[in-house]
């Protein structure tokens, strides 16, 4: 009888196991607590400390392919801002995400009965992020003469007296790409406004050094960061539920890595023994 060799396992079994490890925890209760990291807490605390009426700028740069990871951050931050009666100014410097971001803002704004142009403004998309970020530092009207709905900024009540980054309390770049580099280099580097980032987990490790240098005052990394934020906001949602999925699937992946390595070394030892 042929001996089963883990190294010859069809990769489709691994895909199936990963799928089941993601599917099964969905039917289990979400974790009650998620340990909050200081870099996430700093973002939450800073927004929480702002008095009503202040403007928070959210630079949402993600498209539907990254929505599972980035939308929970955007939603929970928007809910915090609207709960505190802060005004929100949003851009989307990624063309494929324009409608997605718009629908999320409108959804959360409707929950809190907030009005477009009064409580929030959605500027939408313009190409060439570096040029747009620099132009907004001089005047939002240079980069965006009108908002997403083609209303001139001068005709929008919320934008009265709001000229550039000096008139916003902080900028949070919610970005699934290296777009944060633009905000750090051309935005914070040139105009020195308080900047925080919410990065996809792939990108997050690249930005921890900017925390130490003070160029970022906070960092929300991937779905885990979103879950921590939901914990702080006491509004557990999709990200918190996703933590159990992460734990189970990570355990499986670690187990498979260990099993694959052990099998590899055992097979090599056997091969050498036969030689």
């Amino acid at each position, binding site marked *: 009888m042929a001996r089963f060799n883990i190294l010859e396992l069809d990769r489709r079994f691994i895909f199936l196991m990963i799928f089941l490890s993601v599917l099964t925890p969905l039917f289990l209760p979400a974790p009650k607590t998620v340990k909050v990291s200081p870099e996430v807490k700093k973002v939450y605390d800073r927004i929480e400390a702002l008095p009503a009426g202040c403007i928070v700028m959210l630079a949402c740069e993600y498209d539907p392919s990254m*929505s*599972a990871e980035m939308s929970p951050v955007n939603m929970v931050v928007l809910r915090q801002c609207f709960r505190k009666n802060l005004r929100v100014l949003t851009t989307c410097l990624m063309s494929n995400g324009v409608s997605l971001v718009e629908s999320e803002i409108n959804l959360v704004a409707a929950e809190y009965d907030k009005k477009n142009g009064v409580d929030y403004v959605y500027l939408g998309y313009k190409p060439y992020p570096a040029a747009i970020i620099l132009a907004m530092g001089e005047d939002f009207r240079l980069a965006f003469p009108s908002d997403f709905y083609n209303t001139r900024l001068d005709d929008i009540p919320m934008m009265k007296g709001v000229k550039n980054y000096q008139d916003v309390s902080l900028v949070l770049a919610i970005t699934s790409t290296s777009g944060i580099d633009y905000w750090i280099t*051309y935005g914070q580097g040139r105009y020195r406004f308080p900047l925080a980032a919410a990065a996809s*987990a792939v990108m997050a490790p690249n930005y921890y050094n900017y925390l130490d*240098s003070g160029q970022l005052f906070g960092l929300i990394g*991937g779905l885990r960061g979103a879950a921590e934020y939901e914990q702080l906001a006491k509004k557990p949602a999709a990200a918190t539920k*996703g933590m159990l*999925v*992460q734990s189970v699937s990570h355990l499986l992946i670690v187990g498979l890595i260990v099993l694959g390595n052990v099998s590899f070394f055992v097979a090599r030892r056997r091969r050498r023994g036969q030689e």
Partner: protein
Amino acid sequence: MDPVEMLLRTLAVFFTMAIFSFLWKDNMIYKFAEHLVVGISMGYWCVILYQTSFLSKMWGPLTRTLAGHPEGMPDRLVFVPIALGLLLFTRFFPKISWLARIPMAFILGVGSGVAIPLGIQASVIQQIHPTMAAFQPATWTGVGSWFNAILVLMGVVCGLAYFFFSAKHTGILGGMSKIGIWVLMIGFGASFGYTVMSRISLLYGRVNYLVFEWAGPLVRGLF
């Protein structure tokens, strides 16, 4: 649920499964879905670009200026970028293709002028400071901060030593570059771990959609 909404969700599920079918093996349905994504993304991008840039940044100011209703000086300046933009198309005409160098020179000049000083400031100078600032007595908070400061400095210096190719990697430099490799490997390991987390998050998003936003309402609607 609204039948149209349910139909749209079913369509989304079909394309999700079409993309996942690649995990079994490459097939026509996967290729169809892949091409559709590329085509729709491109079409969407063109429309967005036309609406948000061509109309508002070029056509609007141009027609206003030509009609004699310029709203401030910047509108009159619209002729400069339009002329530069049109010059880019001279590349298609060999006899006057050299004219395309003018806007290219402008783009490169402005791009470099803006990017180099800001890039060096943000990515080099401001990064060097915290590496050394940890040794300032004012920032010491105990043995832990000492340890961290030394670890960070060692990681930076040894990591740089690995990329220093002007001398043979033997002796002290060899030892430092070996530590540098370890530092890099730890960095790559952390990045890989985060990448796994990110990909699982995306799969979670799709599975969550399949189960709770499509299958759940569908079953409730049927029974």
